[in-house]
């Protein structure tokens, strides 16, 4: 069977090159732990692993460089590697993680769900709010009330709410 020359994915050579550079950098860092002192030192295993990473990353890099480069340039890269949905969503998650502590779980999560669902539903705002409300209540009941996970409180006095619901349930019994 002759070797099939396939087209590589856009950005593949760059990615493999970054992996190789990272592996080599980590090899150097592993060497800095104690150098080549002994086979049983703290640095021996990390050095072996980073060496393996460097060799395999180099093989992957060579193989990808030998393949035909993709036609389509930046447009293809944007379509296959970083489509708008992925970029936008990464930004949403980043924002959510940043707001989680200052705003608290309930508010930050609700905002995140509404905005991201709204985005995916392509503008159907009321449906997004409805779906988000149902989901946030579900998550809150399952994780906060049943599983008793401690979540960042933030602006809404949620701990009081949880214990009030707890008291209500206990009082009802």
């Amino acid at each position: 069977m002759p070797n099939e020359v396939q087209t590589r994915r856009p950005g593949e050579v760059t990615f493999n090159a970054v992996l190789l550079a990272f592996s080599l950098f980590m090899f150097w860092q592993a060497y800095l732990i104690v150098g080549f002192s002994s086979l049983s030192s703290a640095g021996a295993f990390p050095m072996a692993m980073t060496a393996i990473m460097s060799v395999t990353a180099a093989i992957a890099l060579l193989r990808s460089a030998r393949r035909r480069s993709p036609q389509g340039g930046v447009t293809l890269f944007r379509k296959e590697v970083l489509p708008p949905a992925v970029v936008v969503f990464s930004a949403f998650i980043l924002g959510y993680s940043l707001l989680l502590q200052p705003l608290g779980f309930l508010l930050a999560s609700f905002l995140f769900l509404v905005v991201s669902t709204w985005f995916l539903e392509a503008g159907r705002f009321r449906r997004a709010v409805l779906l988000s409300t149902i989901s946030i209540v579900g998550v809150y009941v399952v994780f906060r009330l049943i599983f008793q996970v401690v979540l960042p409180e933030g602006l809404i006095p949620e701990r009081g709410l949880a214990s009030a619901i707890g008291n209500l349930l206990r009082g009802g019994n």
Partner: protein
Amino acid sequence: MPEALSYLFSSWLRPDLLALTAIGTFTGIYVGAIPGLSVTMAVSILISFTFSWDVNTALALMNGIYMGGVYGGSRMAILLNIPGTPAAIATALDGYPLAKKGEAGSAIGLSTVMSVLGGFVGIAVLAVAAPTVSEFAILFQPRDYMLLAIMGILLVGSLSGESLAKGVFAGALGLLLGTVGLDPMTAEQRFTFGSVQLMSGIAPIALMIGLFGVSEALLQLHNIHAEAIKQKVGRIVPSLADVRKYLSLSLQTSGIGALIGALPGTGGDIAALIAYDHAKRVTKNPEVPFGEGAKEGIVGAETANNAAVAGAYIPMLTLGIPGDAVTAIIIGALFIHGLNPGPLLMIEKPDIFWFTVGNLVLANVFLLIFGLTGIKIFTRIVECPKSILFPLILLLSVVGAFSINNAITDVWWMLGFGVFGYLLKLYGYQIGPIVLGIILSRLMDGNWRRAIISEQDSIPAFLMGIVTSPLSLAFLLVILFALVSQMPWWKALRNRGAGPA
């Protein structure tokens, strides 16, 4: 022994454990069935919420999800030709043709009963084999553990990916990530870059949530607007005659599944493919040819992948070496609960073992119940809007990572590895070996150093030790085989050997 028996049934008698196992199994079926959700994703996200529980309640949930998830993948394989999990690839080969003939109901029913049967055989193998393996494991030398760990990572990396080099890279990366922090033997700092936070290492669960949860959700955004296709599903409870007809075959393929599951690094996906192949070879005159809706194909694949679930617990509970990615995550959870899976676990904590066996049986019973009922609700839930499903996964990933230590640092690690994992997958690297590597890092590093110290830092003596011990030699040969069989020149040689067809 009577004590062991009481542990065996504790999850049957305690209402909370019973409920959690049921919830886990039910959730697992849906997680497995909805394309884009995976068992590894669900287990890695949910496990972070269970740290404050006691270990049995956490295990009950995980066992249920694992059992249910491996089975759930068959649903979409049959209905849409999209295997919900890799373990269901073989199921799609004959399940989908059956559905196209209007027999989706009977295919689902058969796959349910066969999954349960395979599950029971796997659990029986676990109950019988694990105590023996753990007694035998006391004879293992440090070098044997090291070789077993290499074997596990190599098998995960080489059997399921597009290239061996990328699989090995992923495994080594995982092993490296596991070394970050203070060295447990000499307290030297490794890759801490002067950061105090890095001294205690990177939380493995945060990495796993990123690699399995966020990266997969990001990948799924590529085809978020794909429309669901509907299939008509008829009666699903299969006839007893059908089950009896395939009983002999199903027992064989269950056995194959349990054995392959028990090998470190090989799980349900490989078990199902090999069992499918076996079914094809031993069925001389199938009523319908394989690939066009042969029920024997479904029997082979479905018995094997669920038998492999219990099989994968064998190396995890007896050697501390995960059988596949899911058991790697469960080991991560056991560590956090202060348990140390390995040969001593069976002696010091036999309750965990017998609890797991009894709990898996329970999960399997729930699998039968949920598998054969509620097909109407099933079709509704599976059609739930993706526009809320993926934001929810991401939300749970963030909250899950946060709740590991109530620290935002873990969220950053999780997100970083989510994006990194997304790129890795896009460029053909696998995630499985990374996770196995993270879990096995300490075991491999420690055993390597113990082994080489006992040989006074002499490589020749170390190699002699391997070659002269039958056990070590056997492990080494498997490793070499896994490596060589993936080499391009070996493949070329084999193709030439097979001759021009």
